[in-house]
C-alpha cells in the first residue's frame, strides 16, 4: 500500500496543472477486484526463483490504482474489497448486492486470464451480460469496446475480444454470476493472461498494473463523456539483448524472447522523476500523468555500466512506449556496417526490393531508424532481425521504376550500448526501368504458322494479371479481334499463353498486339506497345492411311517404362491419352516431360511396331502439337525386324498441329520397315520441359503435302482399303461442307458394331482407321455407313481372320 501511495504522489506532482481538464464528478462506480484471499479459486502462477503471482493480488492492485484515479476525477468509487484476505473472497451475491445497494452507475470487475493449458495466449477479453450483439444493458457493450481498446493498448496484448456471456459460454442464458442480479450495466475485464510467463512477470510490476488501471480509467472517461486526460504516459521494458528467456516461456513475439533486466533505475528529465525497476524479471518502467512534450530518459543499471539515454515524447491521453535494449555485458566497440543491399551503384534492381543493412553490433533500433535517410522518400516500415543486428526497410508499395535511390545512414545510429556508428555511409541503386518482352511465338513476321497455334508471350517477370485487361489481343489483318482461350496468365513465370477458340484461316495475316502498360509483379510496366505479325500456313490436304489413331490404351509403351528413356525427372514426366487436344477422334497422345540433365531423351514406342509398305514415295507422318521447346523429334523404325533406325524429323519450333512426315527412303539400312515410335531428344538450347500431343500416325500418304485444289465439290464415301482386310483398314470420305458427320459399322443383321466418327467436321477429305482389335470384330461381312448433311452412303467390307 505504501508503494501505491508513493506512486500516486508522483503522478500528482507531474499532473496537477491539468488534472481538472477531465471529470467524472457526480458518477458512482463500483469496482470489483476479482477473487481474493489466495484461496482455491485464486489462480496462482509459480514462476522462477519461487516468485508467485496471485491473480487476486494483481486484480486488487489494479483496482486500488483505479480507485485513486477515478476519485481524482471526481467519481464516487465503491470497492468490493480493498484488502486481500480470505474474507475478501466475497460470494457473488454479495458483490452484486454491494453494487445494487450503492445505486452505482456502472459496475466493473477486474481480472486476468489463463488458458490453463500448455497453449499460450495473451489477449484482452471483455465480457458482459447478454448476447454479444444484444447486451442486457446496451451501455455494457459500449463500455466493453472502450475497455478492450484501452486495456489492449496499455497492456500491449496481442489481440482484443468482446463477448456477451450468453455467447462466450454458449448457454444463451445468463452465465457469469457477477452479472446476475446487477441492476446497472457492468463488465468484466480479463486484461491479459497470467499463465503466459512473460506476462505473469509483468503483472508483478506495480507500474504495469497501474498502467492497466490507466487504461480502464480512460475507458470510463469515454463512457461517461468525461473528456480526455490532458497528460500522457511513458512506459517501456528494458531487456538484455544478449540473454534469451527459456523456451518454456513460449514467447509470443520477438521482444518477449529477450530477458528483461531487473532493478533498472529510470529517470525522467526534466523533472527528475525516478522509477526504480523491480526484481521480478519484467524490466518495466512507467511515468504517468506526464505533461505532453519532449523528455529524456536516463537508464542506470545495477552493475554500474555507463548510463544510457533516450529521447522521448509524451502525448496527452496516450501511452507511448519506449522499449530499451541493453545488456549487463555490453559490447563497447563502435558498430560498423558489415553488409548492405542493394549493392552500391547497382542497376535494374527489383522494384520490390527491401533495403537491408547489417551491423557488427546490437543496434538501438529507435536511434538507428532515425539515422537512416532514403531519397526519394519512400513510405514503409522497418523490420529487425538477428538480435537487432540486421534491419530491413520494407517499402509499403513498390519502388518507382527507373529511379535512382540514395540511402544514407549517419553516425547518429547507435548500438544499444550508446556507441555511435563508426562512420557515415551512403550508397545508391537504380530500379528496373521497364518490363522487357523476352520472346514470342510466333515470332514477328513468321510464316507457315499452324492455324491451331498456341501463342506464347514471354516477359522477364511474372505478370500482374490486373494489368492485362484491354492490353493484349489477337487480331486479323482487318483489325478484328479473334476470340481466344487463355491457357496461362504468366503470373509466376511471365509466360502468357492463349490460342484461338477456332482454327485461324489459312494463308492469312494476324497480329498479336501488346499495349504499353502491361505490368509485372514488381509493378514495372511495358514502356511502349509492340505488334507481332505472323502468317498462317497455306491450305494443305493430306491423304493417307491412319495406322494408329491414339484412341486406344495399351498401344503405346509409357516412356517411363522404356529402357531408352533417360535424363528425365520421373515425377514430372508422363504419357497418357488426352481429350485436351486432338486432331481427330476423341483422344490424342500427350507427353508431359522434364529433363533433368543435358542429354535427356523421351522414348515413346509402340508395343507392336507397325509394318510399312516401302514404296519409293512412301512416307509416314504423325500429327504433332508442338511446344516450341527447340528440342528434336525423331521417328524410330525397325529394319528387317531387328535393326533400330532413327530419322530426325524436325526441331520443335512450332506450336499448334502440324503433320510431320519423313520418307521411308530416308530410313537408314535395308529390309522391311516397321514404324516403332517417336523420340523427343533434348538439345543444348532446348527447354528442359514441355508438353507435346500426337495424333493419327499416317502412312502411305498418297497425296503428298500439297497445295489443296479446293474443297470437295460433292460428298463421297470411298471403298475401304485394303479390302478384305486384317487387322485394319482405312475408310476415306470427303465433305463439300461443314456439318455433323457419323460413320458407323453394322453387321449383316443391321446391328451397330462400331462408331468411327460422330463429330462436327469442316469440309475436306478424311481417312479413318478401322481396327479389329479396338472393336473386337469377328470374321465376316460388314457394312459401313456415312451420314453427313442430307448425304447417306453405305458400302460393304470384308474381314478375314
Amino acid at each position, binding site marked *: 500500500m505504501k508503494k501505491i501511495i508513493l506512486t500516486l504522489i508522483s503522478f500528482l506532482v507531474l499532473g496537477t496543472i491539468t488534472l481538472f481538464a477531465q471529470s467524472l464528478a457526480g458518477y458512482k462506480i463500483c469496482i470489483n477486484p*476479482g477473487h481474493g484471499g489466495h484461496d482455491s479459486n485464486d489462480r496462482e502462477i509459480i514462476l522462477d526463483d519461487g516468485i508467485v503471482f496471485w491473480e487476486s493480488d494483481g486484480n486488487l492492485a489494479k483496482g486500488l490504482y483505479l480507485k485513486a484515479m477515478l476519485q481524482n476525477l471526481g467519481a464516487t468509487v465503491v470497492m468490493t474489497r480493498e484488502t486481500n484476505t480470505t474474507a475478501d473472497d*466475497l*460470494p*457473488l451475491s454479495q458483490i452484486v448486492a454491494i453494487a445494487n445497494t450503492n*445505486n452505482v452507475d456502472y459496475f466493473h470487475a477486474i481480472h486476468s486470464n489463463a488458458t490453463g493449458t500448455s497453449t499460450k495466449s495473451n489477449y484482452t477479453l471483455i465480457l458482459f451480460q447478454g448476447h454479444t450483439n444484444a447486451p442486457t444493458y446496451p451501455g455494457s457493450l459500449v463500455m466493453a469496446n472502450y475497455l478492450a481498446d484501452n486495456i489492449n493498448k496499455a497492456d500491449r496484448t496481442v489481440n482484443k475480444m468482446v463477448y456477451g456471456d450468453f455467447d462466450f459460454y454458449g448457454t444463451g442464458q445468463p452465465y457469469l*454470476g457477477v*452479472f446476475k*442480479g446487477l441492476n*446497472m450495466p457492468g463488465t468484466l475485464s480479463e486484461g491479459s493472461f497470467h499463465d503466459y510467463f512473460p506476462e505473469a512477470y509483468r503483472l508483478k510490476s506495480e507500474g504495469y498494473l497501474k498502467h492497466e488501471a490507466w487504461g480502464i480509467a480512460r475507458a470510463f472517461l469515454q463512457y461517461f463523456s468525461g473528456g480526455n486526460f490532458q497528460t500522457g504516459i511513458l512506459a517501456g521494458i528494458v531487456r538484455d539483448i544478449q540473454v534469451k528467456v527459456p523456451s518454456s516461456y513460449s514467447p509470443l513475439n520477438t521482444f518477449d524472447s529477450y530477458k528483461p533486466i531487473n532493478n533498472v533505475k529510470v529517470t525522467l528529465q526534466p523533472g527528475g522523476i525516478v522509477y526504480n525497476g523491480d526484481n521480478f524479471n519484467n524490466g518495466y518502467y512507467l511515468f504517468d500523468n506526464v505533461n505532453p512534450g519532449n523528455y529524456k530518459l536516463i537508464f542506470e543499471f545495477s552493475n554500474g555500466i555507463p548510463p544510457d539515454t533516450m529521447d522521448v515524447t509524451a502525448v496527452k491521453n496516450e501511452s507511448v512506449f519506449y522499449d530499451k535494449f541493453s545488456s549487463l555485458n555490453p559490447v563497447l566497440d563502435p558498430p560498423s556496417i558489415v553488409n548492405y543491399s542493394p549493392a552500391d551503384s547497382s542497376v535494374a534492381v527489383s522494384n520490390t526490393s527491401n533495403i537491408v543493412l547489417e551491423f557488427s553490433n546490437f543496434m538501438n533500433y529507435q536511434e538507428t531508424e532515425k539515422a537512416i535517410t532514403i531519397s526519394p522518400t519512400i513510405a514503409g516500415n522497418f523490420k529487425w532481425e538477428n538480435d537487432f543486428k540486421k534491419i530491413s526497410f520494407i517499402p509499403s508499395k513498390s519502388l518507382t521504376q527507373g529511379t535512382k535511390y540514395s540511402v544514407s545512414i549517419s553516425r547518429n545510429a547507435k548500438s544499444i550500448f550508446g556507441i555511435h556508428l563508426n562512420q557515415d555511409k551512403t550508397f545508391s541503386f537504380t530500379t528496373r526501368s521497364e518490363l522487357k518482352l523476352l520472346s514470342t511465338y510466333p515470332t514477328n513476321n513468321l510464316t507457315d504458322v499452324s492455324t491451331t497455334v498456341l501463342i506464347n508471350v514471354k516477359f522477364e517477370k511474372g505478370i500482374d494479371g490486373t494489368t492485362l485487361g484491354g492490353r493484349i489481343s489477337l487480331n486479323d489483318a482487318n483489325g478484328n479481334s479473334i476470340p481466344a482461350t487463355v491457357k496461362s496468365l504468366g503470373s509466376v513465370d511471365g509466360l502468357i499463353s492463349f490460342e484461338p477458340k477456332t482454327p485461324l484461316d489459312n494463308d492469312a495475316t494476324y497480329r498479336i498486339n501488346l499495349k504499353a502498360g502491361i505490368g509485372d509483379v514488381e509493378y514495372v510496366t511495358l514502356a511502349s506497345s509492340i505488334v507481332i505479325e505472323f502468317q498462317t500456313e497455306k491450305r494443305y490436304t493430306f491423304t493417307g492411311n491412319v495406322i494408329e489413331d491414339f484412341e486406344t490404351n495399351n498401344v503405346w509403351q509409357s516412356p517411363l517404362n522404356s529402357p531408352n528413356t533417360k535424363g528425365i525427372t520421373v515425377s514430372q514426366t508422363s504419357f497418357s491419352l488426352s481429350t485436351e487436344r486432338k486432331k481427330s477422334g476423341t483422344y490424342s497422345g500427350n507427353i508431359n516431360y522434364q529433363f533433368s540433365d543435358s542429354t535427356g531423351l523421351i522414348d515413346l514406342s509402340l508395343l507392336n511396331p507397325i509394318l510399312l509398305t516401302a514404296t519409293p514415295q512412301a512416307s509416314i507422318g504423325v500429327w504433332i502439337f508442338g511446344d516450341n521447346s527447340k528440342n528434336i523429334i525423331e521417328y524410330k523404325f525397325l529394319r528387317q525386324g531387328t535393326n533400330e533406325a532413327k530419322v530426325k524429323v524436325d526441331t520443335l519450333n512450332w506450336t499448334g498441329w502440324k503433320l510431320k512426315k519423313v520418307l521411308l527412303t530416308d530410313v537408314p539400312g535395308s529390309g522391311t520397315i516397321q514404324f516403332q515410335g517417336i523420340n523427343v531428344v533434348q538439345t543444348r538450347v532446348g527447354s528442359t520441359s514441355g508438353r507435346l500431343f500426337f495424333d493419327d500416325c499416317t502412312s502411305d500418304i498418297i497425296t503428298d503435302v500439297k497445295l489443296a485444289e479446293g474443297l470437295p465439290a460433292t460428298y463421297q464415301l470411298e471403298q475401304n482399303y485394303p479390302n478384305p482386310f486384317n487387322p485394319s483398314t482405312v475408310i476415306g470420305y470427303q465433305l463439300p461442307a461443314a456439318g455433323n458427320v457419323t460413320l458407323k459399322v453394322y453387321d449383316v443383321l443391321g446391328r451397330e458394331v462400331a462408331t468411327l466418327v460422330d463429330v462436327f467436321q469442316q469440309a475436306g477429305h478424311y481417312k479413318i482407321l478401322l481396327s479389329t482389335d479396338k472393336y473386337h470384330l469377328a470374321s465376316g461381312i460388314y457394312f459401313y455407313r456415312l451420314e453427313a448433311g442430307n448425304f447417306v452412303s453405305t458400302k460393304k467390307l470384308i474381314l478375314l481372320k
Partner: protein
Amino acid sequence: MRKVLLLLVLSSLPIFAQNVTVAEDKPVTNLREGRFYYPTISPDGTSLLYTKNNYQGLWSRNLKTGKTIKVSNAMSAGYEPSFDETSGEIIFREDQFIKGKRTTSLSSFNTSNKVKRVLEKGIRDLRICRSTQNVFQSYVNDTNTPVRINKGMSVQSTVAQKTAYVDGNHITISDNSSKKELQPMGEGNYIWVSLSSDRTKLLFTFAGKGTYVSDLDGNILKVVGYANYPSWSADGNWILFMKDIDDGIRVISSNIYIVNYYSGKYYKLTSDENNIKLYPTWGAGNSEIFYNTDDGQIRELLLKFE
C-alpha cells in the same frame, strides 16, 4: 393496517418451536411463462411480485386466480418493490441511464384499474425503505433525507417512523428528529439492511464477514453467520436467509435456512438435490416462503411448526 395486524396475530410463528419442517415445496410459475426472480409478497398475501434476473421489468401475480399482469418494463423496476400502506398500490422504481448516469423515477401502479403514476422523477441514488411486510415507508435520495408518500400518493418530507438504509460505507437510521450513522463492524460494505418490525433491532450483512443483528446504536446482539439476503419474519422471531456457494464464476449450490433469533437454532428448509434455491422472502402468512431457482422458477415453501 388493521388487516395486517390481524394477520400477524393469527399467523405468528411460535418463538420456541421444537421443530420446523417443510410441508410442501410447490411451483408458483413455470418456465414456459418465462424466467423470473426475486419474489416479493404483498402485505395481504394476495399478490406476488417478481422480475427478471437483472431486475428489469415487474410482474404482479394474483395468487388466487393465477392471473399475471406486467406492471413495468423499466430497468430496476423489480428491485425492492413495495406496497402502499393504505391503497395497496405497488410502489416501485424505474431507472434509466443517460450518458451512463442513472436517474430514477418513483412510480405507483394500481392493479385494479391498471393506472400507473410517476410520483417523483429524476431521483439520484434512490433507496426504498420498506417494512418487513414490504409496506412502503419512505424513500431516500442523494440528499440522504427520507421522504414519505401521503395518502393522496404525493410525496411529503416528514417521516414518522425510523428507517434504515445504506449510505456509502455506513448504515443510517433516520426519523423525523434524528439521523444516526452506524458502522457496527467498522469500515466496509453494508448490505441487505433492515429493521425488525418493532424497530428495535437492525439486521445487516457486512460483506465478507457475515450477517449480524445489532441494536440501534450498532452494538452487536447476535452473530447470524454466513447468511445472505437475510430478512426478518414479521414477528421478529425468525431470520430467513440463503447460503449460496459459488466457484468465483457462478453459484454452484444454494439452500434456504431460517434461524430462531432467540434460540439460535437453525433449520435447513431445502435439500441439496434438484435446483439451486435463491433469494427467499417471507410470505404474508409467515408460514410461507417464496424463492426463485437459479434457472428462474418462482416456488413456494409451506412450513410446519411443531
